[in-house]
C-alpha cells in the first residue's frame, strides 16, 4: 500500500482531532476527504484538522477542506484548521481564501480552546 499521506483520528473531549501528514494532491484528496468526513462522530461539536505535517497541498486539497467545512456546518459542526506559520500549506490556504472563511490556529490546543472542547 503506497502512502502519500496519512490520517490519524483522535477524540478530544467534544471535538475530533484529525492529523494529516504527507502530501495531498488529486490522487488522494478524495479518499482523505472521505476519511475525514467519516471521522467526525455525530455527537462531536467540531473537527480540528491538523495540517502541520502536510508537506504538499494543492487545489484538490483545498477543495476537500471547503467541502468538509460545508458538510460539517450542515450538521451544525465546526471545522478549525491548524497550520504551521510560514508553511507552504498556509500560503496555499491564504491564496485560495480558505484562511479568510475558516478559523486557523497554530496549535491543536488553541483550536480546541476555540471550539470549547475539553481536554482528552
Amino acid at each position, binding site marked *: 500500500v503506497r502512502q502519500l499521506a496519512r490520517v490519524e483520528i483522535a477524540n478530544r473531549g467534544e471535538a475530533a482531532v484529525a492529523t494529516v501528514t*504527507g502530501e495531498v494532491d488529486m490522487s488522494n484528496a478524495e479518499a482523505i476527504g472521505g476519511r475525514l468526513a467519516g471521522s467526525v462522530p455525530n455527537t462531536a461539536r467540531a473537527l480540528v484538522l491538523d495540517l502541520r505535517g502536510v508537506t504538499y497541498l494543492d487545489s484538490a486539497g483545498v477543495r476537500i477542506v471547503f467541502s468538509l467545512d460545508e458538510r460539517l456546518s450542515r450538521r451544525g459542526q465546526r471545522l478549525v484548521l491548524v497550520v504551521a506559520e510560514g508553511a507552504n500549506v498556509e500560503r*496555499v490556504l491564504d491564496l485560495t481564501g480558505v484562511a479568510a472563511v475558516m478559523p486557523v490556529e497554530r496549535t491543536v490546543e488553541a483550536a480546541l480552546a476555540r471550539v470549547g472542547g475539553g481536554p482528552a
Partner: protein
Amino acid sequence: MARRRISNRVSELISARREAEVEERRGRAQLEQRRALSEAESARRDLEEVFRHLPVGVIIADARTGRLVSANAEVDRIWRQPFVDEGATAGYASYRGFHPEDRRPYAPEEWPLARSVATGEIVDREVIDVVRGDGTHGTIEASSCPIHDDDGEIVAAVVAFADVTERTRAERALRLLAETGELLDSSLDVEQTIERITQLVVPPLADVCSVYIVEDERTARRIAVSGADESFDELVADMLRRGPIDVTDERNPIAEVIRTGRSAAIGDMGGQIVEDIAEDPEQAALLARLGVNSTAIAPLVARGTTLGALLLGAFGERRALEERDLPLVEEIARRAALALDNARLYNQEHRNAELLQRSLLPERLPPLDAAEATARYVASGAGEQVGGDWYDVIRLPDGRTGLVIGDVAGHGLRASAAMGRLRSALRAFALESESPAVVLERLNAFERRLGDRDMATVLYAVHDAADGTLRLASAGHPAPLAVVPGEGARQLGAARGLPIGVRGRARFEEAVEPVAPGTTIVLFTDGLVERRDEPLDVGIERVAAAAAEAGGGDLERLCETLLHAALGGARPADDVALLVFRPLEIDAARFDAAVAADPEALSSLRQRLRLWLRAGGAPADAVEEIVTACGEACANAIEHAYGPADAALAVHGEIESGSLELVVADRGAWRATRSEDRGLGLTIMRALMDDVSIDVDDDGTRVRMQRRIVREPAA
C-alpha cells in the same frame, strides 16, 4: 235589442275571454311552478346523485344536534361498514382512526368533522390511519369545513375524504428507505447505525424491531432492539436479556431465515403465532399479553453472504405484516447488511494496515536529494495474518542512502513485532557504520542477545551518490536487480550469508557495484518471485525480464508492472515487499520529464522537480511554491486528458541567470472555465509565479510559467 244582445254577447265573450286568459295565465303559472318544482326536484336528485357517486367519501353533520345526518356511498365503501345515523357523538364512535405519528386513537371530538362543527375549523387534508369495518387497515386523507347561515351561525359541517392507503404506504416506504440510506452515509459506527435503523423502522412499519448477526455456524447474537413506545419496554428488555439464538434450531423462524437466506412473513393464524416465534413459555405469555399479530423476518445479505437477520413485529391494532411488506423489509435489511459489511471490510483492512503501519513499514519514504524511490507492500491472500516482510529507506549523511529489504520468518503478531524490532535496530546501526556487512553483523548480534531470536533474511545496501556505487550485504536474502535502460536487468552480486538470528556470530560479505545515475535498483522479498511449482530462478528471471522491458520509466509504473508480471493481478501466496530506487541524473540547467497523465504519477514528478530546483540553486521556500504551481498545471492537464492517446504530459524547465521558465505541455484543451475549482488552481499558479500564460492550439495546451528564483539584492 238585437244590438244589446249583441253587446251582451260581446261582453260575455270578452269576459269569457278574460276569464280564459286569467285561467290560462293561472294555468301557465301553475305549470311554471310545477316545472320549477320539478326542475328543483330534479336538480336535487341530480345533486343527490352526484353526492352519492362522488369519488370521495362525504359526511354531513348537523351543527344543532351534532348528529351525522348524511353520508354518501363512498363512505361505506372506504370504511367497509354501513353508515348509521346514530345521533350525537355515537356516529363518530363507530369509526376507528389513529394518529399516524403515535398511533393514538381518535377521540370522537378529534375527528375533522367534529372540529369543524364545534369550532368552525377548516381542516385541510389530515392523514388518518384507520381500521375499517372488516378489520383491515388503511389510511384516509380528510378535509372538512363548516357551513354558515346568513347570520354567520354554523348550521352544519361537511367532511370529504379519500382512501390514500396505497399512496401513503408507498410514501412511507420511500421515506423509510431514504432515511436508512442517509444513515449509511453518516459517520456512525456500525452498532450505532444498526440501532438507528431499528429506531427508524418503529413505529412507521412495526412495533418492535430487532437485528441479529451471525457469530459462528451455531449462533446469532441480537445487536439492537427497538420498541415503538414504552408499552414495549418490557419486551425489548426481555429480548436484550436473552443470549444468542441457535442458528441450527429447526423450530426457530429467525434461524430458518438465516439458514435459507429467504425472508418470511408470519401472520396470526388462530393464535398459532405466539407458539411459532416465542423462545420459551415466559416470552410467549408476554407476546400474547401485548397482542402480537404478525412478524416479518428478512436476511441481512451482503455480497452473497448472510450476515444475520432483521425481525419486525406488529402488535394489537396495527396492520399485520404480510407477504407484500417483504420487499420493503428486505430492502431495509439489505441496507443494514451493507452497513455491517462495510464495517467488517473496514475493520479487517484497518487491522492489517494498523499492524503494518505501526511497527513495520515507513509511513512514507523520506524525500531523497539525488535519487527517487518508491515501494509496495502486498499482503498475501491467506487470511488476515500479516507477514513479516518490510522495506526501508534511510537518509544517511554525505548524500548516501540506505536501502533495506527484509523478511521475518512466520506470520502474525510475533513476526510483526520482530519486524518492528529489526527495522528500528537496523536504522540505528546504519547511522553508526558505513559498511553494510558491519550493520548486518550488529543486527544479528542484537537479535541473538536482546531479541527473541526470530529468524529473518535481510538485504542492506548503501548507495553513494558521490562516487556512484552501491555497497551491499545479504543475510540470506535474494540479491537485488539492477536495470540499466537499453542494457537489460542483472542481479547484483552479493554472497548470501546466513539469515539473521540463526547463529550467535555471523560474518557477511560485502559487494560493491557501480550504479550510474538512471540505473534502477529493484529490491524484493521472495513472495514476488516464488511460485510453488517452479524453481526460484524462474521467478527471478520473470521479474528481471519485466524490469528490463519497463526500463527507465516512472517508478510507480515500474512497481505496478513488476507486481503484475509476478502475480498476474492475483493476491500472492506469501506477502510481497518491493522497493525500487534510482539515482537521478541532474542537469542543473534543464529539466525534462514526460509522465503518464495519471494522478499517481504526480508525487514522484514533484520530487524530481524539487531535486532539480534545489540543484539549480532555488531557495527552499521558492522550491515548494514552484512545485505547487507546477502541480496545479499538471493536475489540469490530467483532468482534461481525453483518452490513452492524450494521456501523457511533459514538463520542461530551464534556469538561466537566476530566472526559471517552466512549461507544462499536454495534448488536451485547457478548461479554464469548466468549474470554479480550476479557477482555484489558476489562482494558485498566478500567485506563486511571476508570470503565467496559457497557449492552446491544435497540438494541445502549454502552460508557461516564469519566476525569478534568485532574488536580486534590494536596490
